């Protein structure tokens, strides 16, 4: 189980570094061996959030996309709606399943990634960049404080995988 986990983590890291076209902003961030980026905050339901000024971007993590399999459809809301911390705002379809996507923060949806309609696979190939899902104007930025940092999330994923 441990060997498989390490191989999966290494594969994820390699996939991110070789396939993903990291922008200069992201390439400056450390990439943890488990495909987890520095500079982001993480929810226990495997979504990430990047807070930049008045807007926060949200997507699902590399760990999540790896466990879900090939994403073939992404169902996202319209801009202008609102999200609540921990509440579902959409879903991805992979294999034969729809899986809820939950927002790590509360706020107003100001932008939705329309590229995911035609190219849902961006969630797999670029979960932290081109695969972003929504941008939110946070209503309570202090909610970010309760989310996990990269080290904490790395440990969370390792413990979750080890437990099963």
């Amino acid at each position: 189980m441990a060997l498989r986990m390490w191989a999966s983590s290494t594969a994820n890291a390699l996939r991110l570094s070789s396939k993903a076209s990291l922008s200069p902003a992201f390439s400056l961030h450390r990439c943890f061996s488990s495909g987890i980026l520095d500079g982001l905050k993480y929810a226990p339901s495997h979504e990430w959030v990047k807070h930049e000024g008045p807007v926060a971007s949200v997507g699902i993590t590399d760990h999540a996309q790896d466990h879900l399999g090939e994403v073939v459809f992404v169902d996202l809301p319209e801009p202008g709606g609102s999200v609540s911390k921990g509440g579902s705002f959409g879903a991805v379809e992979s294999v034969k399943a729809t899986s809820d996507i939950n927002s790590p923060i509360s706020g107003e949806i100001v932008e939705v990634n329309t590229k995911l309609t035609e190219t849902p696979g961006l969630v797999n190939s670029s979960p932290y960049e081109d695969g972003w899902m929504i941008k939110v104007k946070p209503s309570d930025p202090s909610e970010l404080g309760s989310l996990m940092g990269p080290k904490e999330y790395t440990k969370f994923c390792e413990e979750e995988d080890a437990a099963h």
Partner: protein
Amino acid sequence: MTIPQRQKLGRPLMKLIRLREWPILQQLHIEEQLLRTSSENWCIINDGTREPTIVMGVSGKPAELLEIKPVLHDQVPVIKRFTGGGTVIVDGGSIFVTFICNKDAVPDLQPYPRPIMSWSSLIYNEVFHGTGDFHLRENDYVFGNRKFGGNAQSITKGRWIHHTSFLWDYEIRNMAYLKLPSRAPEYRSARDHLEFICRMKDYISRSDFIDRTVRALGTHFSVESEELEAIQSGRSTKFSPLSRLLTAQEIESASCELESPKSLACFSSP
């Protein structure tokens, strides 16, 4: 969310609803409501559905998956369901089995599509033990290399549903409403429907299948029967299910756009 009562033996409680020829849309509505608003584990078994009905997955596109003209001409109902997966046509020869579970109901099971699919095959390994060459092949239940059970799932933060439509029997003419899907499992090898599927009735009777399924569940859960009326009386009027019947106009529009995406006729029909 309350944790379901565990029996002394440590098996979690699972409530069983047995239906007969219940309309598939109503079954889907009950399932979605139980997934989203209940904190219990459930098994629903529906032995057949009265009217032949096409059921597509959440992202299904009628123009890509259906032979539109005969579907419209014969007024075959088309449903888009809340779970993922492919397209089936169901009728009285179908048997439906659904598991709705809390994510901690099955020890050591990660709430992701592939682990849930694998776990479900363990249940059916017990059901079909000594009967046919059963296995899970990619995401289908097969005897040999012929599919007789199609699966779909939906996973929320704390719960999941895995439901299956089994082809106990089918009408050959009904398969003509379905196109060969562009996204198909590798083992299908471009076979048309009749070469790809098989009938469960050639292996097991309806009653044996259902009895064995309940018995197999009993090795993993403490199963208690529940009456549908008990659920219906407690149903929340605020819950709006996603599964719905497509209108003829929606199906016709999809066909029109496929044939001629910019045709004015697509927009002028009432």
